[in-house]
């Protein structure tokens, strides 16, 4: 399972810069592998994150396909542990591997680390993030933690799921302490990136760029960083206590030694629910950028969308108990958490309505990023609405820990953050690589991903409400047809994602050079004030922010007939 992403950037950079004739830019400013490994340029670090995250996404995706293939097998009556394609323990390892890689290595750093790193300084007119060396250290911590986690799960056979619930995690013989240490290291990379971004946004904005003139992507990354800084340490201390539990047996979480497993769930979900907002808030930021640029319209209700990012970040800390409605948690807490879960749903609804309202009277061009924006809106809407079922405490009793929850979080996380990540990479591709990607293949991939996604996860909603529990490798016969549908869907989804990958690779190696420095004619600084491919210090002269981020040339004052 060794990862050879290190070699990739060298090939990738030489290929890019050799084709480029427009003088020195951040890609060809320095040559060679070490210039990449020890760069403090936030753009290069962003690209390295992008390559690492794509590789881990492929590895995690492979395990997802493995799980789906196993679940498609015809049911064997009275099956023993290894009567199916892969044995029960291997299935448990596979879903733990899929879960841990996708959560810790792919989706938490996906948009903040790749696009946040690349775009934040560019969008606020800064030369670099506040602490460039710290930024590089975060990347190195991420790579060390990632290799450590991948190695321990692959060879240690971790089978506790990405949630490490005690007392199973304190008594299983698999490599829990090592995996917990890997996740602990990764936590630091997340904290330090968050810290870096908060200081950058506060202290290094271009002159004239007040808070209400910042692009909404910066608002979203700022809210995400606040959560990263305030929530991840609690995960760190939880993981330390689990490691102490196994090594010294201190008896805080392990019930055989007098601890309380529900206390562990409280500690764990205090981090993990804000973590899902770390995952989705950057996607909201990307959506605000994509929808406004490609429909040539200023965002509908800038203040509402910006404040709702901060609102989600703050209320997100009060709702973690809805992961534990049926876990023997106290009744008062259950009612409190259910009410606040609905409180956090309101700002999310405001955001979605604002995006759709932004489309009104716009001039919408169906470029690939815009196709992915529509796919995001569709899938995230289903994901958000199914969250309402899980928020009401009485319907949640029937739906908790079933495939309904699996489908819900895949719709929100994969349908939301991953689709937004792909759309964002497409949107900023000309600025990152200076290359053109093929629009037709981009659009085809968005359609195939959309169809594959729905075919994979919608049957899981039906299975879930019919009572199919999670993390099962052998199930009752009445769910068989849905599993077959879902597995076929997962193949279509895999094909779609490979089309995206080939599109990007093709564009890097054989794509034509991008000629204009602002192909989408956006109005944010990273497009207007930089070269086709930004120079190493981003801007020749310090940009001055004079107007809001979304005042497009085509905008014209509405006629004074009381039109709203």
């Amino acid at each position, binding site marked *: 399972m060794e990862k050879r992403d290190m070699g990739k950037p060298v090939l990738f950079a030489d290929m890019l810069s050799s084709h480029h004739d427009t003088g020195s830019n951040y890609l060809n400013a320095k040559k060679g592998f070490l210039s990449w490994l020890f760069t403090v340029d936030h753009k290069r670090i962003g690209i390295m994150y992008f390559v690492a995250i794509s590789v881990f996404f492929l590895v995690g995706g492979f395990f997802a396909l493995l799980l789906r293939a196993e679940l498609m097998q015809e049911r064997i009556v*009275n099956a023993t*542990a290894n009567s199916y394609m892969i044995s*029960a323990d291997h299935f*448990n390892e596979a879903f733990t591997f899929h879960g841990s890689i996708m959560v810790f290595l792919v989706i938490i750093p996906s948009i903040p680390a790749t696009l946040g790193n690349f775009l934040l300084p560019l969008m606020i007119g800064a030369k670099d993030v506040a602490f460039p060396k710290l930024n590089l250290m975060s990347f190195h911590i991420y790579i060390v933690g990632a290799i450590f986690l991948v190695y321990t799960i692959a060879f240690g056979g971790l089978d506790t*799921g990405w949630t490490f619930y005690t*007392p*199973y995690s304190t*008594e299983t013989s698999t490599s829990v302490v090592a995996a917990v240490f890997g996740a602990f290291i990764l936590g630091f990379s997340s904290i330090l990136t968050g810290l870096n971004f908060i200081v950058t946004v506060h202290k290094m904005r271009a002159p004239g760029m007040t808070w209400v003139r910042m692009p909404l992507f910066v608002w979203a990354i700022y809210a995400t960083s606040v959560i990263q800084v305030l929530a991840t340490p609690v995960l760190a201390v939880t993981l330390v206590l689990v490691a102490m539990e196994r090594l010294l047996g201190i008896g805080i979480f392990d*019930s*055989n030694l007098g601890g*309380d*497993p529900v206390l562990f769930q409280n500690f764990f979900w205090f981090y993990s629910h804000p973590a899902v907002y770390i995952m989705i808030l950057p996607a909201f930021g990307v959506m605000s950028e994509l929808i406004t640029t490609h*429909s*040539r*319209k*200023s965002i*509908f*209700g800038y203040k509402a969308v910006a404040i709702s990012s901060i609102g989600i970040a703050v209320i997100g800390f009060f709702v973690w108990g809805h992961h534990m409605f*049926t*876990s*023997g948690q106290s*009744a008062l807490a*259950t*009612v409190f958490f259910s009410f606040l879960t609905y409180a956090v749903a*309101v700002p999310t*609804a405001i955001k979605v*309505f604002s995006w*759709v309202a932004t*489309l*009104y*009277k716009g*001039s*919408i061009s*169906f470029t690939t990023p815009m196709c992915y924006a*529509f796919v995001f809106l569709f899938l995230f*809407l289903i994901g958000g609405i199914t969250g*309402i*079922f899980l928020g*009401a*405490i*009485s*319907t949640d*009793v*029937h739906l*908790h*820990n*079933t495939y309904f929850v699996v489908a819900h979080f895949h719709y929100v996380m994969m349908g939301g953050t991953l689709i937004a990540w792909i759309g964002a990479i497409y949107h900023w591709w000309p600025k990152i690589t200076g290359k053109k990607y093929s629009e037709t293949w981009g659009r085809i991939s968005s359609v195939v991903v959309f169809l594959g996604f729905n075919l994979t996860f919608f049957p899981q909603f*039906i299975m879930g409400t019919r*009572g199919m*529990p999670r*993390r*099962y490798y052998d199930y*009752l*016969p009445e769910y068989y047809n849905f599993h077959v549908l879902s597995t076929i869907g997962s193949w279509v989804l895999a094909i779609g994602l490979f089309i995206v990958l080939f599109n990007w690779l093709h564009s890097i190696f054989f794509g034509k050079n991008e000629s204009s420095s602002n192909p989408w004619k956006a109005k944010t600084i990273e497009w207007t004030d930089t070269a086709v491919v930004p120079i190493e210090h981003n801007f020749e002269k310090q940009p001055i922010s004079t107007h809001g981020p979304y005042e497009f*040339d*085509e905008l*014209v004052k*509405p006629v004074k007939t009381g*039109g*709203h």
Partner: protein
Amino acid sequence: MSETVGPDSAAWQGSFWLPQNASPMTSGQDALFYFIYSLSVFFFVLVVGFMVFFAWKYRKRKEGESTVDIHGNTKLEIIWSVIPGVLFIVIFIWGFFDWIKLNVVPQGALEVRVVGRKWDWLFIDQKTGAETSDLIVPINVPVRLTMSSADVIHGFYIPDFRINRDVLPNQYTVVWFKAEKAGSYPILCTQYCGTKHSQMVRYVKVLPKEDYDKAMIAAQGAGLTPVELGKKLFAGKGACASCHSVTPDKVRLVGPPLFGTYGEMQNVVHSGGKKETIKFDDNYIRESIVDPNIRVVVGYPPVMPSYQGQLNDKELNALIEYIKSLKK
């Protein structure tokens, strides 16, 4: 693992979304489920409709065409914040009242204690003391389950009764239901608990009153010969069947197969690591049940839990007799 596979792929009785509703007292949530479902479909169609309509109507006709500079409309924004807010509060309150009903056990409910252990369930009827692996309950009588786990967290879930609660090792959790439709309904484990988490499937058998009484007497194992009692313990209370196979083909599970091994020579490894070959006799069986990891058969992991204090002598002898009877 339940030998009785239960009704295999009986036709699906239940609506498109939800399974049949065999305990209406606790599964009042179907009404709320369909209320939320109809709201969801409405809002989904509304928003996607607007999206598609706007996307089509305001698609780009020519390069650089002018668009209206709208920065927002507070009236509209207030409307679309208040409406979801009010709807959410309605759903929350409705869910809250249903949930209260789910948790308050009516008086005079039948008391059953549930013990979840690694990869099997055990139901102990408090009135008769009968121990069964499948939950046998009379029809139209509220049953209260006080649940606790013997090792890790399990999840007690009966989809057809809409009840689902984690079973914790360090505290009791209580669910109740009142079955109003005879039949056999699957019990599933919803909290990941290890290798055979997906094979902890047992069945709730809802019987008319008199069949229930008959079954209870049979379940108490009164008047069983030691071998029969041993067989019942092996599959039921001791949950030995989940790790040791008793079939002639000696299939290898988590623990060593027991068919025809009585009296054979077995090489075992001491906890200290010293290897030895001993006779598989009464003392070794008794010692392996009470303190299993002292001498483990070579090639098997020392994971067998100790039954010390849980099986009295009568039951131990019954088990030994049963293992002795396992030969051609």
